[in-house]
């Protein structure tokens, strides 16, 4: 356990360093990340207006302040999706760049690399996404809402950790099975669909609704809903996040043997 923890720490330090340097050289990436939540909210409100009243939408989805909810939900959704996609794509990206072999030689296991690279990428996105919605929250809500947003951001990072397991398996499987990155592209829309970020999962067919309960992201969104509908106390908000964390642990437990298996496949096939 000790060597794995130290390898994870080294890998995280290196990944944060690399992303920080890359970002400092490509500032336009930062601008697009800040714009994202606003673009999403505007699109959803415009679509909502086209199909009916925003009040009806609020009623449908069960929140008091729909704009506030949309911003919060966007932050939750974008950061959570990035956890999975960063993690899953990090290994494909590394193979594409040709860095995967060298990273593997410096770190004890490719699963550790995938986890660290994914977490570094996702946590930085979480930070920028949450920071970017702060003005909107202050404008449509108030200082108290900002405190809850901060709390939610912390919980999201916790939720991210649980989403990593899924990302690790997806990424390593894609390399071990020689899939290309576009195979992973179906993951984010599926996650959006099953998480109930932009409309209630209750509207989905029963089978998909049941499937949503196995997606940690669903519980993070539940917490966001509670927050914007009831101004719920942080303690109550925590319940769905705990559910997400437990689910994440289960996935992580499954991911460990699976990723070891995939790692062996990579060694045999020379991925």
């Amino acid at each position, binding site marked *: 356990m000790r060597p794995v923890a130290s390898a994870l720490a*080294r890998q995280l330090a290196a990944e944060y360093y*690399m992303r920080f*340097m*890359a970002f400092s*050289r490509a500032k336009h990436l930062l601008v697009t990340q800040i714009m994202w939540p606003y673009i999403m909210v505007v699109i959803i409100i415009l679509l909502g207006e086209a199909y009916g009243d925003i009040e009806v939408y609020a009623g449908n989805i069960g929140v008091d302040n729909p704009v506030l909810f949309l911003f919060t939900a966007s932050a939750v959704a974008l950061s959570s999706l990035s956890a999975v996609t960063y993690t899953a794509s990090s290994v494909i990206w590394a193979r594409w760049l*040709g860095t995967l072999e060298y990273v593997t*030689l*410096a770190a*004890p296991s490719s699963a550790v690399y995938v986890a660290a690279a994914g977490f570094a990428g996702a946590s930085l996105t979480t930070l920028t996404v949450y920071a970017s919605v702060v003005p909107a929250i202050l404008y449509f809500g108030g200082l108290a809402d900002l405190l809850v947003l901060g709390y939610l951001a912390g919980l999201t990072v916790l939720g991210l950790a649980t989403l990593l397991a899924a990302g690790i398996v997806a990424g390593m499987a894609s390399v071990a099975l020689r899939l290309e990155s576009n195979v992973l592209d179906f993951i984010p829309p599926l996650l959006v669909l099953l998480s109930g970020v932009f409309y209630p999962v209750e509207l989905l067919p029963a089978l998909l609704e049941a499937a949503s309960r196995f997606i940690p992201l669903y519980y993070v969104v539940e917490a966001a809903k509670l927050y914007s509908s009831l101004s719920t106390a942080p303690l109550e908000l925590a319940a769905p996040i705990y559910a997400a964390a437990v689910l994440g642990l289960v996935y992580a437990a499954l991911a460990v043997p699976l990723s070891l298996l995939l790692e062996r496949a990579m060694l045999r096939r*020379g991925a």
Partner: protein
Amino acid sequence: MREDGIVAESLVKRYHIGGLLRRGRRYIEALRGVSFRARRGEVLGLLGPNGAGKTTTVKILATLLEPDEGDAWIAGFHVVKDRGLVRRNIGVMLSVERGFYWKLTGRENLVYFGLLYGIPRAKLDSRIRELSDLIGLEEVGVLDKPFEEMSLGMKARLGLARALLADPEVIMLDEPSLGLDPASARRVRRVIRGLAEEGKTVLLTTHNMVEAEEVCDRIAFIASGRIVAEGSVDELKSILSPIVSVVARLLPPHNEVNGLLDKTLAGFDFSVRERGEYLVVRIRVKRGEEHLAVEKLLSLVKDGFRLIESRVEEPGLEDLYIALTRGGSEA
């Protein structure tokens, strides 16, 4: 085993082709029993044509690929059973063109990999300075240029620096000088020689004979997944080619000389060519019998010839290479 940096024993590797579900039906046998050794303080060249199995061998020795059969040890550690220990003792360069972050500079890339190795930041900076002096990174502007803007020569220097970052015992370089400018290629070769002199073990693959002859202590020829010959450059030449040429440039006396040459060199396999006022005489003898030809040449001096220069010509490594790989691919 301790004095051997690298030991490969009967390595076999098959690449299965077709999807996962149809595994085992069709495969390419990339290695068919590869064995060789490289001692500490030695540069071993793995020389062979494209598709011979050089990269596959390096990847197996670097723990990036598992062999289907056979064993290999790096600094005494088994490449499958002691994978972690092997990784701590090797530095690898697999391809000159890839393997770095495009947007990051040479220095930033080295810091990234240094952090992965767990080298503390302060020590890392001084290590990068050391390597810069050794390989000439600063000199050609590698440290402060983004990787995407580098020439092949710069990329190769950076790749070599990464391989040496953690000061490994065994260094493996896959075609390190492919496509480099002459200055970078020379620098890379000089660094490789220096590493061997420090007592490191270096394995380098190449299909460049000149490079192999210049930088390697010993050479293993690989063709179609088999080692077809192994030894020092001189050993290989003497085993594979028992005939050498004694070549002399002579200034003949003014009188008629052709009869004299024929008489003196009677019994030798020789040829004569005119080069302006000189004659170039090439005498083929068995290796070790060069002196017999030289004695005859000296006797010509008594007859009024002036001996301008003479040398013993080895068959080129290139000739050997062609002979060996032709033999190998028929197997």
